[in-house]
């Protein structure tokens, strides 16, 4: 009885029953890794740092995890944010420009990049909430414009830089783990605080579930929408700074390319419906982890990176199908249809 309710609490925390399939998918992948990839689970403690493939997955997956947290809230309102990949490039470009040509210190350059990118992100929110533009169109506009702004800031060049703070954020170690892990945990804590300790979470879920009824209750639907897109921009800025720190350069043309799609996959795989409503932040992180594990596994198995998206797509479709209540119902009827044959 007690374990029952504890299990229930855990499963709602992770996104209801559907998250089981995400966990199962992850477990299956890890099983494949354990069998076919040599030394996959081998961890090594060297110079106070932890090394190994699992640590690498956490580090590599951190950008999508950061994006997924913001994306979860946007999707929960019934929208979607396609601009996050471009906004990563914007944040990277501004940070690099401020640190080099601007001559600023990291202490002022990074907040500047965060602020400007968040403002650009909130522009999508204004388009959606005030002008009533479709979220896909609004964020597509910002996606295209953002890439342009990033190119403009870096003058179309790849800006290389050697800043110790940026280097630490992108590749440093903290408490024995890559600093990016700490960053993800911190952003998760912040997001949980903002949504669950205040009423924003309730307002977001109500807006996504039934916008008209929410408005009739006095829920500030527009404000909620502007804020979720702004927050998504903020998350994208963090991911962009991490990406820039990873490669010690602001590559406006390539940074964050197609990453908005990974973030959307992570949210969907994590149990938040694209139609809006209930959202599951931990589920989204788990989804991001699943996608990164998949990528790393394929790399380790020697699948050429050019064809890697194909198996990735297959896995995502499978997980989404298994989560779908319609598909589950159909599975049950298949089973039922089969049982009489067995007994007969």
């Amino acid at each position, binding site marked *: 009885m007690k374990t029952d309710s504890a299990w229930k609490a855990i499963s709602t925390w992770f996104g209801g029953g559907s998250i089981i399939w995400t966990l199962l998918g992850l477990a299956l992948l890890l099983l494949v890794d354990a069998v076919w990839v040599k030394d996959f689970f081998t961890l090594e403690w060297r110079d106070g740092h932890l090394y190994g493939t699992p640590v690498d997955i956490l580090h590599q997956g951190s950008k999508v995890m950061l994006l997924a947290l913001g994306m979860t809230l946007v999707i929960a309102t019934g929208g979607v944010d396609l601009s996050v990949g471009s906004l990563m490039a914007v944040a990277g470009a501004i940070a690099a420009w401020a640190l080099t040509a601007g001559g600023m210190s990291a202490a002022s350059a990074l907040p500047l990049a965060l602020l400007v990118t968040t403002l650009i992100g909130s522009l999508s929110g204004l388009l959606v909430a005030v002008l009533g533009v479709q979220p896909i169109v609004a964020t597509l506009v910002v996606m295209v414009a953002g890439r342009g702004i990033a190119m403009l800031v870096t003058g179309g060049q790849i800006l290389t830089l050697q800043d110790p703070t940026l280097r630490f954020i992108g590749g440093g170690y903290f408490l024995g783990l890559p600093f990016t892990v700490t960053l993800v945990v911190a952003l998760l804590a912040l997001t949980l605080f903002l949504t669950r300790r205040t*009423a924003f979470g309730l307002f977001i879920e109500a807006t996504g*579930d*039934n916008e*008209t009824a929410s408005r009739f*209750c006095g*829920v500030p639907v527009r404000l909620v929408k502007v804020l979720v897109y702004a927050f998504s921009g903020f998350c994208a800025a963090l991911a962009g700074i991490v990406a820039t720190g990873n490669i010690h350069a602001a590559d406006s043309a390539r940074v964050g390319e197609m990453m908005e799609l990974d973030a959307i996959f992570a949210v969907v795989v994590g149990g938040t419906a694209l139609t809006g409503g209930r959202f599951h932040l931990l589920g989204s992180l788990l989804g991001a982890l699943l996608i990164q594990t998949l990528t790393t596994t394929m790399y380790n198995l020697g699948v050429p990176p050019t064809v890697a998206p194909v198996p990735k797509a297959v896995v995502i479709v499978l997980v989404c199908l298994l989560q779908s209540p319609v598909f589950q119902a159909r599975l049950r009827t298949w089973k039922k249809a089969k049982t009489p044959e067995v007994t007969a």
Partner: protein
Amino acid sequence: MSDSDPALLSLRGIDKSFPGVKALQDVALRLRAGEVHALMGENGAGKSTLIKVLTGLYPRDAGSMRLAGQEISPASPRQAEALGISTVYQEVNLIPALSVAENICLGREPVKWGCIQWHQVRQRAVKALQRLGLQLDVTARLDTLPLALQQMVAIARALEIDAKVLVLDEPTSSLDEGEVEALFSLLRRLRGEGLGILLVTHFLDQVYAISDRITVLRNGRLVGEFLTAELPRLKLIGQMLGREPDAGQAAAAPSTDLTQVSRPVILETKAAGFRGGIQQLDLSLRAGQITGLAGLLGSGRTETARMLFGIDPATTGSIEIDGVAVPLDSPKAAIARGLAFCSEDRKREGIIPHLSVRENLILAMQAGRGPWKKAPLAQQTELAQRYIATLGIKTPSPETPIRNLSGGNQQKVLLARWLVMQPRLLILDEPTRGIDVGARAEIDRLIAQLSADGMAVLLISSELEEIVANSQSVTVLRDRRAVGHLQGSTISVAEIMKWIAHSGEEAA
């Protein structure tokens, strides 16, 4: 046009069922050439189902349809059109971004070698419009025209094929008076050309202004066919609502409390209105009094509620709260002034389906507190449990998603949502629709209790008995205007029906 004329279109014994509902049972309709025939009935009477059967959108389960003596069974609107039955639906269903000519010929463009003959398209459009006595630039985009002209274009499109029967579903609901008159002179002209016109409308005045015959449906059954000239309004309403107007059933109206008039007015509208909704409305809502808002479907009942609650803000006149004119331009503003509104459309405008009973119950309160001052979970649960107990809401737990509850229990949660706010004026639009009898009585009792505690209540219902049984004051609406105010012992079903039938005229 005598009765011996063979009917142009004749429907007999039409049955149509949907899972769980018999939408039409043994319905008949006879439409003669050269007449305007009104199809009347309240919500759920089966008017739109009948039209959809007639135009081939729904297959009929039983019965026969004859057009000019020939048995027909259209399987799609396209086939119905080919047979000569053309329909103009309520919402102008043309394509705003295409030109007038393209709209008129859409789907039946003249084609040669796989190419549309644009020259012919324009010629045909001009000809179709000329038939209606209209001269328009047929290359203009449709959405550059006023709504009334768009409606005419829709009719031109319907007549561009060789139509014998023209079906108009609520053609006037978005038109103003002058535009309605223009449409009617067109209909008279088409009637003169021998067309059979079937008209669905909620506006009584318009029915009497244009129609020759009336067929009344009620609960999916045929009530009867009448000559308009021989059917007094009061009788028509009696037929639509299913009761005799002169049965003298003055249901037990609550006795007038003499102190009532001296009760403070909470909200007063002065000639308030908005286009397409309600016009020139004067309404006083007093503390501790239940005011009923009666009228037929489409008379402006729900529109009044939406205007007061700031969903469709008043564009004319003013609304005063405690004697001070206030701008009620959003639900948020209305809630801040102490108003609350339970919509008739629970599913679309009331419940947040996947959220729990608790979350649904505290949502308005939390919205009022703003996002930062979140009500502690313990307080939320306490509130939810208290209202679950006092209103007798049947739910496994406060954490059950509200969509798993029955309609009556959902309605109680929505009521509780507003009771938490302790509003000064509670607007209830069809609070007992789709709710079983037991829960209905409970909700009525609750409303009476709230009123006794000093809340002003505006009760909207299509069931006159419900209005009569609960209200101390009744305002009757007709064709988007308030036409009568009843007080205390003068409130009865018969009296309300008289006012619905005869605005301003001597009540017969």
